[in-house]
């Protein structure tokens, strides 16, 4: 299991459009799955837009990512760190 700690770069946090873009990208990495969690909490599937929104992570907060697939992990980490509101 590989892990990363990333700071959320989207201006609105992982809501609405950024959450949708992230979930769609994570779903495209199947069968690899990436879990995303608030530090110390249980992870949720990054390809679930609903779970992402329930996390309610704001801009500048950190999240922990984990996956068995290092390439998938890198892809998701990069998106979490990016400002998806600007895309």
């Amino acid at each position, binding site marked *: 299991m590989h892990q990363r700690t990333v700071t959320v770069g989207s*201006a*609105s946090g992982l*809501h*609405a*459009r950024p959450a*949708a873009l992230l*979930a*769609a990208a994570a*779903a495209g990495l199947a069968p690899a799955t990436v879990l995303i969690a608030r530090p110390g909490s249980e992870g*949720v*599937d990054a*390809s*679930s*837009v*609903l*779970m992402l*929104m*329930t996390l*309610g992570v704001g801009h500048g907060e950190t999240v922990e990512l984990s996956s068995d697939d290092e390439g998938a992990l890198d892809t998701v980490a990069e998106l979490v760190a990016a400002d998806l*509101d*600007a895309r």
Partner: protein
Amino acid sequence: MTAGGRRLAGVGVGRGAVVGPVALVRAPAEVPDDAPAVRDGAPAAADDVEQVVVDAFAAVAADLRARADRASGPLAEVLGATVLIASDPSLLAGARAELGAGAPPVAAVRAAVGRFIDMFTSMGGLMAERVTDLVSVRDRVVARVAGAPLPGVPDLTVPSVVVARDLAPADTAALDLGKVLAIVTELGGPTGHTAIIAGQLGLPCLVQVAGATALEDGTSVVVDARAGELRVDPSDDDVAEVADRARREAAFADDTAPGATSDGHPVDLLANIGTAADAERAAAADDARTVAGSGLFRTEVLFLDATTAPSVAQQTREYTAALAAFGDRKVVVRTLDAGADKPLAFATLPDEENPALGVRGYRIDRVHPQLLADQLEALAAAAAATGTRPWVMAPMVATPAEARALATAARAAGLEQVGVMVEVPAAALRAREILAEVDFVSIGTNDLAQYTMATDRLRGELADLLDPWQPAVLDLVAATARAGTEAGKPVGVCGESAGDPVMALVLVGLGVTSLSMSLGSVPAVRFTLRRHTRSRCVEIAEAALAASSAVDARAAAVTLLDAEAAALLA
């Protein structure tokens, strides 16, 4: 000859009349929690139930994706979000867990989606707004599992009158517009989402029609927007009258020349738009709807679904597309008009007791100065990218000092033509001082009437007070137009009244120089204007101003109409 049936009253949007069969936008079917899963019209075998549920989620996602692909702009994005929900792995996982615990399939789907509905509802705010999407996905999946009719917009096979309790943006996007004759809703207001879309498409529309969804699918109805009436099972005479009106309205279509009075006094006829897609539609019109540009580009449409302010880059893209569509024609961009009946997630103060009198329009600059700065920067960038010279104006300006501050900011951003909306009586009364600060003004008659008559725009039962023909409202329009004439600066009107052909003559008579309206209203206004001289318009305006009530003002104007125009507009 048939007798002709019931009449249902509503509020009309536009002037058109059509006859056609009702196509109901269905409410979700009532499916009991223990209804069996259905495969090919028969109850599914016990070991196939889980697959039926899996297939139902997939089919709903595929159907929504197809609709999203056909839509464009913000609607495509709204639908895209619904697709993601329908294909969300946590919903399917939740439903499978419920099935494993022995729940029947419909109950399993409801429980899996319901978990998120409860969570989002309790989180409130923006999250609660997503509940509509969750409910829509839930009802579609349940209908698929149980083999019940799908809720939502019907697939139209013949041109039809679409009848709904209310139309969500997603429903509108799903309509095959080529087969929509008219739109009728039980809810909604004359300035709401449905009415604006219908106006842009030139479709007759009735809102606030109580009992409309009780009509049977396929019932023949006449939708008469001008009369604000739905006639059920119309008589042969009713049908003939609709055809006759269509023939007469076709007479408008021959005239595509620039707007002017019969003696050649030019009046810019412009389209109200909300998105780059509207701009493209309006700019591409090469029939009687041909316009000289846009007198009102409502930028808040860009912001409506956003949870945070769109970035300068996003705004620049949208403005560039809209400006490019109109080329060297005039485009008047209105800065964000949030607040009151158009709350925005990120720019509306949550605890205003009286939002129509609160921090809305230009006043938002007091609490969120970055919003206006970003808009002006994006607009200037779009102007540079397209080589165009857009006009910019701010809504809800009340004082010359506010007008000066706006003009300073806009000119510093590199924008040359700066104006303000006249919606607050204070601005109309001090139009001369305001025009000393800016290059033009544009009168928003809907809000000017609301604030002059102290009447909430959303209170249907006070519609008589909100009438732009109220003499007090006309007085303020006249004062503003007079100040513009004296200053030699343009005075436009961009409220709904600019699209009323008789009012258009009054406005021109008062000295208004441009009229901006929904695209569908342009032909009748152009035709009417062309049949009257400038001095006749002045006489009509004087007659309206001399009247003592709104009803008398309009009647006085109508008696002075040219006979042919009167026959067409009566």
